[in-house]
């Protein structure tokens, strides 16, 4: 890390300024939407988290970045060098050890004519942080040292909200995500928060991990009101249901991923057709299939239909609070949950291919929770359509096919050829 370099690096900011007094002239404001400063408060989905970390791989093609490009507005992001940072949903928390090969500065420094001038952006407008919960957005702020080995979440907060602020020689504000968003004085804000709470509860199969709707509503109201008080247009997104993501698959869907029949899964693992097998569960099953020995699945492999229904109900309650907070503060609601639901039910067409919500279905990256760039492009276009409809604008949509052509996620394939049958797996059951 070029820590010593940074304090000197940004000093020239303090000696800028000549000829400010002359008035500049621009075109008249014709749209009711001012896109000058577009700020996004979100968690991993809006950050561009994918596969096994947050990195430029998907950050540059995240749906907020794609929307910003279509709005032709500045959207500096806290770009992270691959392989990225952040914990992966469903896996144990990792120690924060940075940089790791092949990283150098971890945060990407923008190239300048003189290499010694390369620097990261001082402010970012995509403030989304993988693993961030709504309550964190108003409480967590950067804390030195920037890398906290035992606390990946704090490290990610530091790298996004506190870089390069933690390196300045003069004291500068260390903002929470919410404070940061307000400080950027947005004209348009997007709030994508609450998804991580739902993921956390769903992956743990524990409905009690969902936040209390009243407390959630209070904090959400604070955030939306704080942004609206700046006269920003605020778009809030509903919380997608994790059971619509590829992380959770019914036996019917999981069977196509692990190359067997739904019956083998329900009979072999004593689950119902309405239960959900998780990504980790599918990986465990695949491993057992290759070993030709079925055994108990590790914890977190299956979420029962009853638990899923309970969590879904709680998500719906939070979404009702989001809609209510938006209405109370004159914000607008983009139904991201409906988008994910639509994808799960009918898939989406990209060229000649139907992208589905299944694992390896072309939408989700290998973490099964967050999309690849094609998925982000589809979200971006849906959001752009919403913006155009809501604000009577005509921003162009993204060329999804062009993005899909370069997206490795679109190359993922479910197993083809033969499938694992009862006899092959040594099961003493009669397949229908």
């Amino acid at each position, binding site marked *: 890390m070029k820590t010593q370099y940074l304090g000197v690096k940004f000093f020239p900011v303090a000696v800028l300024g000549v000829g*400010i007094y002359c008035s500049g002239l*621009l075109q008249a*404001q014709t749209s009711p939407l001012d896109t000058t400063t577009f700020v996004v408060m979100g968690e991993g989905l809006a950050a561009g988290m994918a596969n096994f970390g947050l990195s430029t791989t998907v950050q540059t093609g995240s749906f907020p970045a794609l929307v910003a490009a279509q709005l032709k507005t500045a959207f500096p992001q806290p770009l992270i060098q691959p392989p990225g940072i952040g914990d992966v949903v469903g896996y144990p928390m990792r120690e924060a050890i940075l940089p790791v090969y092949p990283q150098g500065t971890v945060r990407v420094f923008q190239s300048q004519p003189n290499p010694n001038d390369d620097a990261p*952006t001082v402010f970012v407008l995509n403030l989304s942080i993988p693993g961030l919960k709504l309550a964190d957005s108003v409480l967590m702020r950067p804390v030195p040292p920037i890398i906290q080995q035992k606390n990946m979440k704090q490290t990610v907060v530091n790298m996004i909200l506190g870089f390069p602020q933690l390196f300045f020689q003069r004291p500068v504000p260390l903002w929470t995500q919410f404070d940061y968003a307000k400080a950027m004085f947005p004209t348009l804000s997007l709030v994508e928060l609450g998804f991580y709470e739902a993921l956390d509860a769903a992956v743990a199969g524990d409905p009690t991990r969902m936040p209390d709707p009243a407390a959630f509503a209070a904090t959400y109201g604070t955030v939306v009101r704080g942004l609206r008080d700046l*006269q920003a247009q605020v778009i809030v997104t509903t919380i997608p249901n994790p059971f619509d993501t590829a992380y959770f698959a019914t036996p019917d869907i999981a069977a196509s991923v692990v190359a067997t029949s739904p019956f083998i899964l329900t009979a072999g693992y004593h689950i119902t057709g309405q239960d959900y097998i998780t990504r980790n569960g599918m990986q465990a099953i695949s491993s057992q299939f290759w070993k030709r020995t079925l055994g108990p699945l590790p914890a977190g492999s299956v979420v029962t239909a009853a638990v899923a229904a309970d969590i879904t109900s709680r998500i719906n309650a939070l979404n009702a609070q989001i809609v209510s907070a938006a209405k109370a503060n004159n914000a607008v609601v983009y139904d991201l949950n409906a988008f994910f639901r639509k994808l799960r039910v009918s898939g989406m067409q990209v060229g000649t291919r139907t992208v589905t919500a299944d694992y390896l279905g072309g939408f989700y990256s290998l973490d099964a929770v967050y999309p690849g760039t094609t998925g982000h492009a589809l979200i971006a276009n849906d959001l752009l359509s919403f913006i155009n409809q809501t604000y009577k604008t005509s921003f162009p949509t993204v060329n999804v096919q062009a993005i899909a052509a370069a997206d490795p996620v679109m190359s993922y394939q479910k197993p083809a050829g033969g499938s694992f049958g009862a006899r092959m797996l040594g099961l003493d059951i009669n397949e229908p």
Partner: protein
Amino acid sequence: MPGPAGARILALVALLTAGSLSCFGSAFSIAELGARAAGMGTAFIGVADDGSALYYNPAGIAFQPGKHMEMDSLVVVGLFRFTPSATPVGQVVPANGYSQSIKPHFIPVASMYMTAQMSDKLTFGFGIFTPFGLSANSTNFHDGDPNLTKFVGRFAGTRARLEQFWFQPTLAYKVSKNAAIAVGPAFVHTHLMLEQSILNPKGDGLVFGRQAANTLFPGVPKEQAAAVISRLLPEGRSRVAGTADTVGFSVGFLYKDEGSKTNVGLTFRSAITSHLKGKASFAFGNDYPLQQYIGSDFLTNAFPNQNITGSFTTPATYGIGLSNSSVHKMRISFDFRMQDYKRFSSVPLNFGINETNKKNVALPAEQRLAFNFKNSYHYAVGVERTLSEDLTVRLGYLRDLSPVPDQSVGPLFPDANRNSFTIGATKKRNGKDYTMFYEAMVFEHRTTDVAANSNLYTNGLYHNFAHLAGMALRFDMPAMPKLMKKH
């Protein structure tokens, strides 16, 4: 040297005039400087038979025997309203638009005239009056208020004050029984103050934004980055104020044809270029996101308070007037006046401490405020009817074509063409004339749409009206000691 009573009178007059605020007329002209003239729609060049002749047509005093003192006062209540046609997104605009009413609402303007016949041919006069003045105030906010609740056109100006006092001794000479000429050199004192908000995110703030773009947002397109950065700056306010003393003059001619009972008058008042000396001061909010990055003294260093110089030009006035009193007990008058406001193209301000001689200063050596006025024209007609020996009544109409081009219509000059309707009366009592008038000044609605002003947010509908009322006291100078003793 005036005697004790005269000194008290002069002190009173000086107090009145010094305390006056001027505010009216075409752009910043004031035409209602005589109550009697104002009652006749200001058509007075061909009449010029009271003390205000020193303003309307100084040759008129040649036909005023004896010694007279006259004090005129005028009160203006301006009702200005502006409804912008475009605003920043989220701007809070009052339901009926912004009120630009002058504060205080009642603006007094006072004038004093004195004439003394020296001989059959020579008459001396002295007048103190304010032919130019302005008082505009669109400040509906405190600096700490949310930006989007503040007056939307504040970057084009929030307050302006102009007062130009003419101290004009005059000599009038009868070249014949029916014709006179006059010349009045004048000492002219001018005070000007302009205030506006600065660091407009869509204007001057962008300049800073462009300079900081690559440092704060490397890799982001410059204009996009500049637009974001300009919103991270605080709004500031600049105030420039200065005074100047200079000289001008008025000349007049009046011919009275006894046969036709018709008068013809000509008048000219010189243009004045006031070389102002004063101060420029700047203030900024102290709670903004960039403050700790650029340093708390950055903006105060960039905009240092300092002495300034500048110049301000007021136009010359050319006028011709006719009056006729052949109809029984009635006088009809007509004036045409032109003011060459084309001279008022810009106001240059010179900063001694500027970007060329001090590091990190953002001020240019010269800042030129462009106005590009055009000439203005007044057409006035008035009627005066004597009802009895001691009562005279008047009616008048004034058509005033504004010199302010669309580009300069804004908070400093919310001007438009005007139609004014006046009434007035004079009552004589104990050898003194008490005169009153009222004027309803109807501004034409004016809608501006100037592309260059789109980011100053001064385009929109200007909807104005003004009430003017005044009174005057005129008396013979010999009566003065008695008056003072009585009171």
